[in-house]
């Protein structure tokens, strides 16, 4: 059932998130968490989703798997099209076969994502209990461990998670997520808990696998340098909205939204020697306390009276767009 290149035309996208609004119902009050989030992913593309904590990155990415926040999570509007099929219209069985088989996910904390009481080998085999395949399971696990650069199979499969380092565990997580050859990998802050040296190893591994397998990756991170190095395109999220989307090179040279510019200026880099770090003042507003106009207004260096009206969406070139009055 594997799709080939010819099935997907150049204009078609593997994943399209359209106007996705998600809320939670808490003590009879509806709290909107994301507001009309839209982005698209081509086959083999690495799309970055960047933003501060609490801006709705993880909620949006979980919604791609059909998971809404619990308890009280609600889909308010929009759809998630995976290969032109709306995943919110799928029944439970087909949704389950989608998860893991077609879309898989790796998380920030490799330690927290594993069961500490079960050996690595058993945890990897568990995958197959839920997804029937005809392939030789042990053979496949060995192949994948090789692919992620772990060669000491016997020892690793016999180990418990605490016996391995964070970098090794993240490699195992990646191997596990690839067991069923997914078309889309959602990587939610895959290297935040790791050292820079290990980060470079893991990211180059993800990029290599993405190229070899023509797999798409949704890379979620708050590290803009990481995006600059590895993503093909980027969406910036702020307070539940996507405020800017563009190709990565155009974004880095000429970011349009003041928040994007603020993010770029707020990070110290090794090559920007001597430059002052310019912080963005204030804090991200909490859900439910968003302004009705531009949500970045209070922290924006160029805000004016007009910003209390909802900002219009403007296009940048063919592919990019941003949401700002200026």
């Amino acid at each position, binding site marked *: 059932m594997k799709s080939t290149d010819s099935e997907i035309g150049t204009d078609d996208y593997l994943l399209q998130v359209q106007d996705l609004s998600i809320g939670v119902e808490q003590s009879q009050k509806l709290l909107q968490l994301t507001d009309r989030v839209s982005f698209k992913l081509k086959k083999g593309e690495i799309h970055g989703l960047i933003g*501060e*904590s609490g801006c709705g990155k993880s909620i949006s990415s979980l919604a791609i798997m059909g998971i809404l926040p619990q308890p009280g999570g609600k889909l308010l509007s929009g759809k998630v099209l995976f290969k032109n099929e709306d995943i919110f219209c799928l029944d439970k069985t087909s949704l389950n076969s989608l998860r893991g088989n077609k879309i898989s996910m790796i998380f920030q904390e490799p330690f927290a994502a594993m069961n500490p009481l079960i050996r690595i080998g058993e945890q990897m085999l568990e995958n197959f209990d839920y997804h029937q395949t005809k392939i030789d399971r042990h053979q496949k696990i060995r192949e994948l461990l090789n692919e992620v650069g772990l060669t000491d199979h016997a020892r690793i499969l016999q180990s418990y998670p605490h016996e391995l*380092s*964070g*970098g*090794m565990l993240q490699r195992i997580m990646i191997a596990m997520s690839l067991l069923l050859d997914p078309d889309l990998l959602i990587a939610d802050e895959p290297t935040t808990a790791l*050292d*820079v*040296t*290990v*980060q*470079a*190893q893991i*990211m*180059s591994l993800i990029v290599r696998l993405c190229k070899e397998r023509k797999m798409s990756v949704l890379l979620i991170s*708050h*590290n*803009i*340098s*990481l995006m*600059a*190095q*590895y993503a093909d395109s980027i969406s910036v999220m702020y307070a539940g909205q996507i405020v800017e989307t563009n190709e*990565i*090179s155009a974004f*880095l040279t000429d970011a349009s939204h003041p928040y994007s510019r*603020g*993010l*770029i200026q*707020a*990070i*110290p*880099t*090794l*090559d*920007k*020697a001597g*430059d*002052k*770090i*310019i*912080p*963005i*003042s204030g*804090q*991200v507003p909490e859900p439910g306390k968003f302004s009705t106009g531009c949500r970045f207004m209070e922290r924006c260096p160029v805000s004016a009276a007009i910003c209390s009206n909802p900002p219009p969406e403007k296009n940048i070139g063919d592919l990019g767009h941003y949401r700002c009055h200026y």
Partner: protein
Amino acid sequence: MNNKVNSPIIEVTDLQTWFPVKSGLLGRTSHYIKAVDKVSLRVNHGEIVALVGESGCGKSTLGNSLAGLLPIRGGQLLFRGNAAFQGNRLQREVFQNKVQVIFQDPYSSLNPKHTVFEILSFPLLYHKICTRNEVSDYIASLLEQVGMSAEYMNRYPHSFSGGQRQRISIARAIGMKPDLMICDEIVSSLDVSIQAQIVELLLELRKKLDLALLFIAHDLSLVRALSDRIYVMYLGKIVESGNTAEVLTSPSHPYTRALVQSVPTLNRECPPVILQGEVPSFTNMPVGCSFQNRCPNKSERCMNEPEITESNQRELRCFHPVQI
């Protein structure tokens, strides 16, 4: 003034912090984890010194040892020229509360059952920094110094975000009027925009209060923007030290170079270079140079342990430094 600048606040020579590993039926010490081994380090008056390295290299252990929070096995720790340890016994009065530590996780370093007022007042009253009558005003001024409103005094930690909690931790530390603050990864759990705010605050406080900072971090770009001098640590030993800008632009130790090269930059033309291999564990250290199994410049000489050599105010522990 110049004299003051160059006088060390804290100076350690050949500091060793070892943890015994007990095994067998009788629980005898079979060997030691040498988390900090023969480290010499100095923080001068009003200076910001960075300590960098991968996780598990002993940075935090060294930081805690410097604050007198851990028993040391050997070496000397001088605070303002006075020995803080007589043998293995800590002479707490030497520090006079002038060394304060701020920890990494702002969620576990503040007691959730106490209000901000209580959290900040306990150390002040215990150490008689101020009297009961003054304490409220003093805390208000501390909160103001870290950019928070005095109204927050009666709230509990759960009502604050990570960045605000870290500000409260900073307020607690500066309340003791320290000479040296040891900041152990204090921004690594915060968002970038908040990170920059905290860094700004530290720089401002340092100027205003004439503080010295030991900044323990693994984020090299942050360290580059912040610190005057840097120590690079690998497996319990300092492998290179010197002026931050110089060390990071022209690293001499192959490990420092690998660290610098693996940091992603905004420029896609120069992608990160990958350092192969994993950090060996403390229980299974290689004989000789501890970096040899990952080092591109390795030779037979590296089976012996390299000593620290000094040239141009740069200290280096390597037989085959990177040629520039």
